[in-house]
């Protein structure tokens, strides 16, 4: 039976943490650990989730968990998996939780190496679309138009000039056994994907969009709605990559308004109607591609 709120493991493994109220990243970590269970060894690089989870003596993980270097999530996972195997431990999961900066920028080389070796690890990127822990700087997963402290919005430049890097397909291009996208606005889909990743040997990658009220400029109670809306308006999508093909899990019949999605976040407040049209055009091009290439 598929995992849902009623059947989910009641034990909490990420508890008492110091994330901001309404943090989407902490929800992604919490839910993933509940699906993975007690015999899970977690690696957290520099970023919000390590910063809020390990404030000695307040240690908020109830399973084995360790902080890695910013760039080293995947290499530490490789070491943990090999070390446990060498000790004869068989029933465990090695999971990493890295931010968008830690994954798409500084950690990409280590991740690519681990996929190349096909190490038996699960890498989860919680994507809050900027370097949040150091005060909202642009990463290569920050979307076009978003205001960050390094892509300010002024008279001449209106936020980030570059589109969001297509990391899911970059990871898939390695020929990885399993990759998926997810959103904290669709937790049943996310839980199903973690459950599936649990059963697969080799490298697994899940990219979950996780709104950050602090960096996005939304209310603390809007996290889930916004994470749902980004999928419904077509600026994010739920998909999987398996056995060499892409599968679309959710195909909105009609997109909800991009403008509504953007305007409720203060990081997009400055955008002009023309900017929004640019974003809409790139969405439409992306979906044309998805419909052509995904099953």
């Amino acid at each position: 039976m598929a995992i849902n709120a009623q059947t989910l493991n009641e034990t909490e493994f990420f508890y008492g943490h110091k994330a901001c109220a309404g943090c989407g990243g902490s929800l992604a970590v919490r839910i993933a650990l509940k699906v993975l269970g007690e015999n899970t060894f977690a690696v957290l690089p520099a970023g919000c989730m390590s910063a809020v989870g390990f404030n000695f003596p307040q240690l908020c993980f109830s399973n084995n968990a360790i902080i890695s270097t910013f760039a080293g999530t995947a290499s530490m996972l490789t070491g943990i998996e090999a070390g446990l195997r060498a000790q004869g431990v068989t029933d465990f999961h090695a999971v990493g939780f890295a931010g968008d900066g830690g994954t798409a920028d500084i950690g990409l080389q280590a991740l690519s190496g681990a996929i190349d070796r096909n190490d038996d690890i699960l890498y989860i990127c919680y994507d809050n679309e900027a370097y949040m822990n150091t005060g909202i700087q642009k990463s290569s997963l920050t979307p076009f138009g978003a205001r960050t402290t390094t892509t300010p919005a002024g008279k001449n430049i209106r936020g980030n000039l570059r589109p969001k890097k297509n990391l899911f397909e970059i990871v898939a291009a390695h020929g990885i056994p399993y990759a998926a996208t997810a959103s904290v606005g669709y937790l049943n889909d996310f839980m199903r994907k973690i459950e599936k990743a649990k059963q697969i040997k080799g490298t697994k990658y899940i990219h979950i969009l996780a709104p950050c009220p602090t960096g996005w400029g939304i209310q603390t109670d809007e996290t889930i709605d916004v994470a749902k809306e980004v999928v419904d308006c077509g600026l994010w999508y739920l998909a999987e990559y398996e056995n060499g093909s892409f599968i679309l899990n959710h195909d909105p019949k009609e997109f909800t308004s991009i403008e509504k999605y953007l305007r409720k976040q203060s990081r997009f407040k400055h955008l002009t109607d023309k900017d929004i049209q640019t974003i809409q055009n790139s969405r439409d091009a992306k979906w044309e591609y998805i419909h052509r290439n995904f099953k």
Partner: protein
Amino acid sequence: MKPFLREKVPTSFDEIPDTTSYEAGYLVTKNAGWRSVRPIVDTEKCISCLRCYLHCPDGVIFRQDGKVAVDYDFCKGCGICKKMCKSGAIRMEAEK
């Protein structure tokens, strides 16, 4: 089922690890002070769908007597549970 608040906070050097490891799930401070509003569950209206429990970023909602209750030591008052409840069983009340 969930970690608990310890009574003892390490205070001297011999209680602090000299290796890189320490007991998991070791909690010595609450998050209750962050909150300006608190969720109140109306157990009459609650249908135990667990949507609030599933979506709480802090995992502080738990099952109790066939309904749900909140661990106020660690609830931050974000209001997500209230938004997720389709039965209108949760309201947010200002902290005094």
